[in-house]
């Protein structure tokens, strides 16, 4: 396959998932699009032989570091909201309690927002992008064992919270 076709195929295949992923990190449409564009531009310049075989992991990894670099440059300060600070200051407190007063719609995303960043990211890469533990480890620059830990801990937390919450509802 010629180089431009190869790129085009990868764009077609990964554009949406990457945008979604970048948006989950940036919460800004234009920043997400910038990061994804930048990712594909790097793909154009990259050594294809190094990428083939793990394209998805490579793209998500580059996209993630683009987002981090952009945030470093552009968002130098970002105070926590009082609610976030409260969660941090009282880590034992169950975010589900905060959530239960609202309707149950969108409960899962809200509970996921309460997870530590890396757990949330690992879970997203697993369930939204279907990446293997091995590829997630590549993207997050950590070990497979750590990915297993992050995902398990995150899912267990969600399971605990939903159990508590449903107990409270019924």
């Amino acid at each position: 396959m010629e180089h431009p076709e190869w790129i085009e195929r990868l764009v077609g295949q990964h554009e949406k998932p990457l945008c979604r992923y970048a948006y989950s990190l940036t919460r800004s449409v234009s920043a997400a699009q910038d990061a994804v564009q930048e990712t594909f531009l790097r793909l154009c310049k990259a050594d294809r032989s190094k990428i083939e075989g793990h394209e998805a992991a490579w793209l998500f990894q580059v996209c993630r570091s683009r987002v981090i670099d952009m945030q470093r440059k552009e968002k130098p300060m970002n105070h926590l909201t009082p609610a976030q600070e409260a969660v941090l200051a009282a880590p034992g407190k169950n975010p589900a309690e905060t959530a239960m007063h609202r309707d149950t719609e969108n409960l899962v995303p809200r509970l996921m927002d309460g997870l530590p960043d890396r757990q949330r990211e690992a879970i997203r890469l697993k369930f939204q992008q279907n990446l293997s533990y091995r590829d997630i480890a590549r993207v997050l620059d950590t070990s497979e064992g750590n990915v297993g830990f992050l995902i398990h801990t995150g899912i267990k937390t969600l399971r605990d919270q939903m159990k508590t919450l449903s107990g409270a509802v019924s």
Partner: protein
Amino acid sequence: MNFDPNDPRLTAYVLNELPDAERAEVEALLASNPEAAAFVEELRATTGLIAASLANEPDLTLDPARRATIRTAAETHPAGRIVAFPWWRTLAGFGAAAAALVLAVVGLHLQRVKESRSSASELQIVTGIVHEQPTDAARGAVPASVAIKDDRLVATPPEATFDVAALEKMAEPPKEELARDNAFTMSAPAPAAAPASPVLASTRAVGLAAKGIIGSGFAERRRQERESAIISPSQDDFDVIRENGFQRVGDHPLSTFSIDVDTASYAVVRKLLNDGFRPPRDAVRIEELINYFTYDYPPPVDGRPFAAHLEAMPAPWNPQHSLVRIGIKGKVIDRAERPPLNLVYLLDVSGSMNDVNKLPLVKRSLQALVNQLDARDRVAIVVYAGAAGLVLPPTPGDQGPAILEALERLEAGGSTAGGAGIELAYRTAREHFRSNAVNRVILCTDGDFNVGTVQRGDLEAQIEREAKSGVFLTVLGFGMGNYKDSTLELLSNKGNGNYAYIDDFNEARKVLVDQMLGTMVTIAKDVKIQVEFNPAVVAAYRLIGYENRMLKKEDFNNDKVDAGEIGAGHTVTALYELIPVGQPLPDVPEVDALKYQVPSSPAAPDTEALTVKMRYKDPAGDTSTKLEFPLPAGALGNPAPSDDVRFAASVAGFGMLLRDSEHRGTLTYADVLRLAESALGDDRLGYRAEFLKLVRNAEAITGKP
């Protein structure tokens, strides 16, 4: 295998991520343990909810303009470049090994191109199916309607019918049919079993590629690890140092400087040399190299906070010159007598701190420290990244588990915003300020200390102000990339604090635990040294290092001028190179003899070579006390210099060689090695032996003997 809800293998089992052997183990457990089986089913249910929820997230694509940019770039860049090694990687230090690696990678690269040709066509077939079955449809989720508003995606998600039902199921005692419930099977595709999910394509491709290129993949990964672990030293940020030159005693009889106990430069130099780089000149701060080592100076016996020990020897790089060592030893405080600690750790948890030699190292070393604390101490942890937050409110030192648990929860991610974090850290320290305690903020960062919208000057002013009110700042630099050496040192100096660079656990333990009392308990502050030279004995002198610690001579008696501090048990070492009267002077411009001044007759014509005067304040005091230590002229010709002075001289010589100092004379690395080898002393912790290795590395890298 026993049932442990915290065992990650249980989730890995649900997600088909376990190798067969472990999979069998889990299945055996599930068959024999109903509790475990129920737990795993709940995990499975949760994964289903998560997958469904994420599938419902609104789609986002690139706009046509961005797509066009990418297309243009794809057409202008040639495909499949040959692996190129940066030229400096093949330089000395790497030598043959690096060259062999290049050959191996290029060789395997060629093989890989062949492999990937054949696998690419198969790949295409698989992905063709993916296109026909979009993942959303495969998951059975209904796409949401989406609008972009204020740069955000605003979605109207379809009815979340599964939520309530699923929650009710989970509250009930687990039943066997739970797993087969529609709500879950619909939304929980087991990834590996899904017929046409993208993961199939990618794992297949990985499998195909792996067959031919495992070797190359490994070499490549190693190379990438190296590249990410270190960056070219020129990208690091070091202030320029202009070496102190010789001063004629007749024109400048006084030499004044502030004491400095940082040691960070040594660790930076060590890291670079071990990685095969010659450190940039300005990364080499000789006084920090010298002070990295401990010397066996006796502590004071007379109730004073410190003792000064003067000793001389011939300069190794010029035997006609004398080297005078000023060795200062802070009084030693018994652990039981130490004041309580009020510590606020300010941890950088930005994404770049993720490396094993950063945040995980911070955690390990804090764990080691926590074991040394007791009920009198307070420890708090503030983190900063994209945002700042208090993760551990001030907690008594005997509640180790609570502190360790907070540490365990820490993980890196996000960008750095140090400004907000440092504010919160100081606020926390102030709230628990105790006048009899050591009140200190300890900043752990990899150096990209982003002060945010706060002006750097404002930040410095704040740190200075806090130091005056009794909260000091210690800065610990981790890792190497993005290392803003000069910023960190400046910040710690403003905060009456010290600064260390930490690259492995030994170093972490040395700084955080072994030196804890020394680093933490300040026994004297604003410690200044002024040396008066006797022109009847000494013609000229030169202070080695301490370039950015020089003070004006009138500052010595000015209590308003800040200076360094000494911690309990600390040693501080400074070296002067002296040119005795009668030896030729280097090219130092002479000031004309004064016409109207009457030359005073010396108090002690030629019995003393110099006097070291020291001023210090109590940690809580405002007025200084002066101490004097004279060196008899006869001591200059010391026939049997101690191991300590000779070792310090060898380290100074090493620094001069690395800095290409104009004063290095005929000194070689081999000379440094010989001198250091003969002066190891008992070297219980092996620091001096490690120095020998470093000298050999430097010799190999620079290609000079």
